[in-house]
């Protein structure tokens, strides 16, 4: 079995991620997606194999034992060969040391098929959140509202460009989209009808800060089955520091009761954002690396679909992560994982978005290679009708894909479409070697571009966080399966 590992073409580090989480030693076979629990000796053996490979040394039992002895593990020859035997069996089964599938790249029709749009219905905001990439709603331009004509053209655009796809997604975004609620109503009505005329359906989502979420609007969202993403950062002091009104007052006291009220209307919301769902999402920054406390704060409020994510900020921003934060953040994920487990089935249990991994119904390899689809499957539309690869690129001239008011609005700038389509994991040197590649898909293009100025170089702090939450997520999956005494077999 060790012969496989001895030739340099199979890198264990890249293809088998073994790590310690909570009370478990875990091996994740990256290419098959299989998961194993190891005993400590086996874990150390795998780590020794990695080390030998890294040092370009021969991988054999002798070398492994030598390394283990150096670290005080006196594994006997018999024990080691027993372990190697078991590893070999799993390799035979294809659940460990499995080969990477041949590189099959996603193929796309020449003309992009756009299945989702983000409509920036208002480039204005009633808050002044400090980390907002939209520069408090104006996106580097002046404050503006989308008009009905542009909105309708946007809907026609996605219905046209979605080709044979029957399901389209439209997200109302801003700024604060509820500042233009009248338009939202008109577009939902228009969109439903226009979609039905073509035997299609549109799934609408609204991303809001909650300030204007009054009874009337809540009722409307319920009636129309609109999914809602609500922003709340957690504890009052954390939220208020980053999400003030223009006069500096915090917004926690205003939005929290409204968000709670709305969340209570959707108790059955899908943790995988299927159907009509709600999610409460927050951002953590340098100021709250103990963001697990913010998640728990929200869970204690009765909010149970939660997503809290790392801020993406330029390094000079006061809230940008600094040296030393990473360790604290990782500890926060560890604590959160344990708390998540202990609250399962109890009062105040919660879902944390990044801990969801649907191993059994996860997406196919092709999807995993291609990522978010920004710039070809997903397009953002500014209030003026300009088209951009995604909401984060709105206002960046270099990335403008076209305009709804161009002679041919359905013609997207080819070179940009191409550059986004080809920014998949095989084109990114770090991703090719990364164990998280099939879960992560190469990170967020917008974050990558803003940190590295390139679509194919990645934002490495983002990578560390991505890998950490994946480690916890896989651990939780194992715990859940252990709890149900029911190993999963998907082959």
């Amino acid at each position, binding site marked *: 079995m060790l012969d496989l590992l001895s030739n340099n073409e199979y890198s264990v580090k890249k293809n088998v991620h073994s790590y310690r989480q909570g009370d478990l030693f875990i091996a994740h076979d990256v290419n*098959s997606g299989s998961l194993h629990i190891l*005993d400590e000796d086996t874990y150390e053996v795998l780590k020794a194999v990695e080390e030998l490979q890294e040092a370009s040394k021969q991988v054999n039992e002798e070398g492994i034992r030598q390394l283990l002895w150096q670290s005080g593990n006196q594994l006997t020859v018999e024990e080691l060969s027993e372990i190697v035997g078991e590893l070999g069996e799993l390799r035979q089964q294809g659940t460990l040391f499995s080969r990477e599938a041949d590189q099959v790249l996603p193929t796309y029709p020449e003309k992009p098929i756009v299945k989702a749009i983000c409509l920036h219905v208002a480039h204005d905001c009633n808050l002044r959140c400090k980390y907002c990439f939209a520069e408090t709603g104006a996106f580097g331009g002046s404050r503006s509202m989308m008009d009905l004509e542009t909105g309708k053209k946007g809907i026609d655009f996605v219905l046209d460009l979605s080709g044979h796809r029957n399901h389209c997604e439209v997200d109302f975004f801003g700024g604060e989209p509820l500042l233009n609620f009248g338009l939202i109503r008109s577009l939902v009505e228009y969109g439903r009808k226009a979609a039905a005329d073509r035997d299609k359906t549109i799934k609408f989502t609204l991303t809001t800060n909650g300030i204007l979420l009054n009874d009337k609007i809540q009722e409307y969202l319920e009636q129309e089955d609109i999914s809602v993403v609500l922003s709340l950062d957690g504890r009052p002091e954390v939220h208020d520091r980053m999400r003030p009104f223009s006069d500096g007052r915090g917004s926690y006291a205003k939005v929290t009761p409204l968000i709670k009220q709305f969340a209570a209307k959707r108790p059955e919301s899908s943790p995988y954002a299927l159907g009509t769902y709600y999610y409460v999402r927050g951002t953590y920054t340098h100021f709250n690396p103990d963001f697990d406390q913010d998640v728990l704060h929200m869970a204690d409020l009765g909010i149970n679909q939660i997503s809290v994510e790392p801020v993406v900020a330029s390094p000079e921003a006061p809230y940008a992560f600094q040296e030393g934060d990473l360790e604290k953040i990782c500890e926060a994920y560890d604590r959160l994982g344990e708390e998540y487990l202990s609250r399962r089935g109890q009062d105040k249990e919660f879902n944390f978005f990044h801990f969801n991994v649907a191993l059994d119904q996860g997406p196919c390899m092709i999807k995993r290679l291609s990522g978010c689809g920004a710039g070809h499957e997903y397009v953002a539309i500014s209030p003026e009708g300009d088209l951009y690869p995604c909401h984060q690129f709105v206002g960046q001239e270099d990335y403008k894909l076209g305009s709804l008011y161009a002679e041919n609005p359905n013609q997207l700038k080819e070179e940009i479409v191409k550059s986004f389509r080809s920014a998949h994991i095989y084109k990114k040197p770090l991703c090719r070697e990364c164990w998280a590649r099939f879960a992560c898909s190469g990170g967020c293009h917008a974050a990558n571009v803003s940190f590295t100025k390139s679509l194919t170089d990645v934002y490495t702090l983002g990578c560390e966080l*991505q890998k950490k939450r994946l480690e916890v997520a896989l651990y939780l999956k194992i715990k859940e399966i252990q709890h149900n005494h029911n190993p999963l077999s998907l082959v």
Partner: protein
Amino acid sequence: MAKHIQTIVKANLSSTVKTGGCGKCQTSCQSACKTSCTVGNQVCVK
């Protein structure tokens, strides 16, 4: 029964290279400002 390793999930992700790619799934954005749906957190709708 294996003494040192316990398999919890047996999967064969690589095989979906052949079966997948229908494109019916939701888009997945992983930025902090949106629904934040990393591919790994998604489900297949097929």
